[in-house]
């Protein structure tokens, strides 16, 4: 289908590329411990980009039943308005091998998926708590090609298992959430880890204690780190650099962070949700060191941003069926090894033992609001624990944490032994010193 489309592109424009993707998803929703619905989704569509008279245009459709002429017409109309851009499509090249398709996940029966949910319900259900479990299995097929001759085609599986427990006592609402995401069905050990993570967090949270106050050491768990890493993710985008809004722009080669801090994007991590042999613009995948021993090494680019910035794509183009490609990370790792620790379920990964008075942050409210890229944050806690003389004493409510991530990451107080994957991100807990903790 793409070959025909690109043939038509060659006749009517200078060049182009196209992505065809078909996805089939099966979803299960357990509400309050009961399976309530089973869902299947079939979706297919094409995203087409053309270059005509040096101008770039894009169009997409899910109405693939109709002739592709209409799609090409719309892409050409879009190009007629587009700004000129010297967009070069990558030439053919061999793609690295990365396992993205797991037969066991693709072939798992509905009954097997229901079984995973039932096991979690049996192990996690408890009085006074509402337990929801969501399971999704996706099988997809992607085809990307351009008029320069590059092509990529791969199948992928994805499995997501989300568990949330809500406990309401009077006006106190406690929510504990965790998830498994991967290309394969969760193993027995991975389900154990999920169960232990949720029960440990819930039990520690049953006791409510007074929040501490002041400039304190705060442990951000792999989940709590979202607020700390989001500004960096934005600042390391080549687009932010090009727009002049990245605080890291122009700092390549400079030591900006603690020398033990590294950030890597690895699209070739085996069995991970963000892995793929090439990006959505047919650029071959390769691991990329973004920050190495505290030094800024590399920003991420897609084809268009690279063309505007006068550099080459790092293979970070992502596109949906509609709209034009944009920049996205594949699998982001704090540190480099991506090997989950065996005690990943323990909040703080052992860092709490060394603290006299501090906080463990699992989840914050309002992450992503405000002026994120600047690095300054101020959030009420959604789930946090107090640390008192090395012990986790209970859950803290009505507290807020604030700081600037560029300042805080200059000196890291410690790395937890709890490195784990959360979706497409791998990180251990980080101990950051001098975080402002306020009571409300």
């Amino acid at each position: 289908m793409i070959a025909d489309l690109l043939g038509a592109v060659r006749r009517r424009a200078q060049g182009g590329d196209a992505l065809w993707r078909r996805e089939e998803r099966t979803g299960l929703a357990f509400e309050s411990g009961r399976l309530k619905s089973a869902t299947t989704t079939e979706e297919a569509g094409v995203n087409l980009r053309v270059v005509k008279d040096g101008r770039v245009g894009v169009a997409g459709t899910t109405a693939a039943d109709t002739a592709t002429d209409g799609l090409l017409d719309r892409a050409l109309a879009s190009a007629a308005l587009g700004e000129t851009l010297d967009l070069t499509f990558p030439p053919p090249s061999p793609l690295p091998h990365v396992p993205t398709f797991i037969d066991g996940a693709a072939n798992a029966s509905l009954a097997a998926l229901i079984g995973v949910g039932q096991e979690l319900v049996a192990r996690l259900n408890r009085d006074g708590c509402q337990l929801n479990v969501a399971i999704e299995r996706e099988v997809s097929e992607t085809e990307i090609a351009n008029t320069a001759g590059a092509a990529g085609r791969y199948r992928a599986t994805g499995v997501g298992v989300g568990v949330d427990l809500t406990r309401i006592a009077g006006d106190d609402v406690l929510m504990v959430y965790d998830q498994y995401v991967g290309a394969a069905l969760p193993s027995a050990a991975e389900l154990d880890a999920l169960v232990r993570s949720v029960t440990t967090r819930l039990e520690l949270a049953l006791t409510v204690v007074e929040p501490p106050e002041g400039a304190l050491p705060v442990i951000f768990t792999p989940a709590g780190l979202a607020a700390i890493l989001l500004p960096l993710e934005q600042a390391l985008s080549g687009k932010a650099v090009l727009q002049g809004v990245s605080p890291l722009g122009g700092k390549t080669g400079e030591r900006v962070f603690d020398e033990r801090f590294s950030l890597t994007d690895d699209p070739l991590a085996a069995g991970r949700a963000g892995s793929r042999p090439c990006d959505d613009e047919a650029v071959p995948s390769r691991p990329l060191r973004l920050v190495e021993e505290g030094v800024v090494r590399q920003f991420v680019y897609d084809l268009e941003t690279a063309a505007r910035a006068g550099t080459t794509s790092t293979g970070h183009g992502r596109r949906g069926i509609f709209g034009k490609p944009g920049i996205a990370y594949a699998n982001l790792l704090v540190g480099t090894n991506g090997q989950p620790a065996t005690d990943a379920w323990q909040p703080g990964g052992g860092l709490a033992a060394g603290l006299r008075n501090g906080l463990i942050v699992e989840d914050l409210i309002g992450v992503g609001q405000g002026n994120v890229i600047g690095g300054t944050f101020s959030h009420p806690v959604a789930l946090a624990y107090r640390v008192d003389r090395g012990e986790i004493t209970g859950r803290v409510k009505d507290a807020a944490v604030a700081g600037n991530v560029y300042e805080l990451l200059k000196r890291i107080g410690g790395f937890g032994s709890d490195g784990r994957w959360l979706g497409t991100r791998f990180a251990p807990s980080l101990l950051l010193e001098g975080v402002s903790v306020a009571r409300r």
Partner: protein
Amino acid sequence: MKDRLRDALKSSRADYREIRVERTWSSAVAFRGRRLEAATASEDVGGLVRVLHKGCGWGVASFTSLDRLPAMVARAGELSRAVRLDDPIRLAEVFPREADAVLDLDGDVRGVPLAEKKRLLEAYNGAMLAVGDRVVDTQASYRDEVSEVWYANSEGTLIYQLRPEVVLSGTAIARRDGVIEKGLESLGYRKGWNAAQGRETGFRAVAERAVALLDAPGVKGGTYPVVLDPELGGVFIHEAFGHLSEADFVYENPQAREMMTLGRRFGKPVLNVGDNGAAAGLRGTSPFDDEGTPTQDTALIKDGVLVGRLHSRETAARLGERPTGNARALSFRHAPIVRMTNTYIAASRGGGTFAELIKDIPLGVYACGAFGGQTLLENFSFTAAYGYMIRDGQVAELVKDVVLAGNLFQTLDRIERVAGDFQWNQMGGGCGKGGQFPLPVTEGAPHVRIEEALVGGDVAV
């Protein structure tokens, strides 16, 4: 299409079947700085089947190839049968009806060339850039769509809807040395091309405000009397209270139901809150929800007391209440869930003007607009776009970094005065829940005064 739906429904013998098919034409234009990012036109077609066998759970199938409709009806039936329930799902009764609901397209966007849309947005983007050198970056976007939606269920309901939408947004980034500030314009209408005209003033104003914020001090953190403008008041009631009034939050959870017991006092008698899916011409408006239930104005808080909640047919049956027409789906990719439509704090009768609301506040904060807000059930955090100090009953200097955080129950109870100057905020964006974002909704409020709230901003670092 109606015949195709009727035939497909007949092919299944399940106790309840419904089909929704949508065809959407849309176009989008985006600028970043002076550069056109993209100008595209798209077509999206697909459907969703939902089936319920007696004693079983929901079987749902969504698809983009309409040829697959009969196969998907069968597949949804199989899925339903795979979900065994000892406590069966029941649906509250809704009178079956056949209707065509065709909205005025208000200048059909499908007839306007993409180049015209680009010119319009270029002018609005230009209005932001023209504010001066301090405006270092802008983002502007235009999006329109026209959707056709067919809905049919096995009880005899058959509805066709045709509706337009147009959304404009602009972000202006102002910078001086290390200080970066932004201004945000967002407009959304269930109308067409005509509604998108003549909007330069709003775009210019947000760029001017971003520049003004460069010189504004951060608000000093602390507890103040706080007055919310209608925009922030609307966002607040939607985020902090509205989601708790969605019955799927309580219908399977006895503790949550206790927390949200009808008759519980939530605020002072001046507080009246509702959700009105039948209000004329708003983005959350539709004559029927996505289960074919007519929409209505539902009172949620009356004179400070909780009196209602928002329902789908399933949650209404479970709680023995009446469906309110709040089962909504983002698109054919999703089954409907309980959602808000147009949510509001009602004006108070004789509530007076903004000037009267602030005249006896010696020191307070006037919080305006919203950059964002998040709630985690009883806790919330809202970032106002900007604010002013209130000094001796008058609006004083512009301040920035106005973040409101607090506990919902305490904060609702501290709403002490509500003005009479109600307005709907016709904005773009939308609401997210259960992976369905952005669902078009509208919020509305008059100026609202909270006797005391925690304002963060310059928390010491």
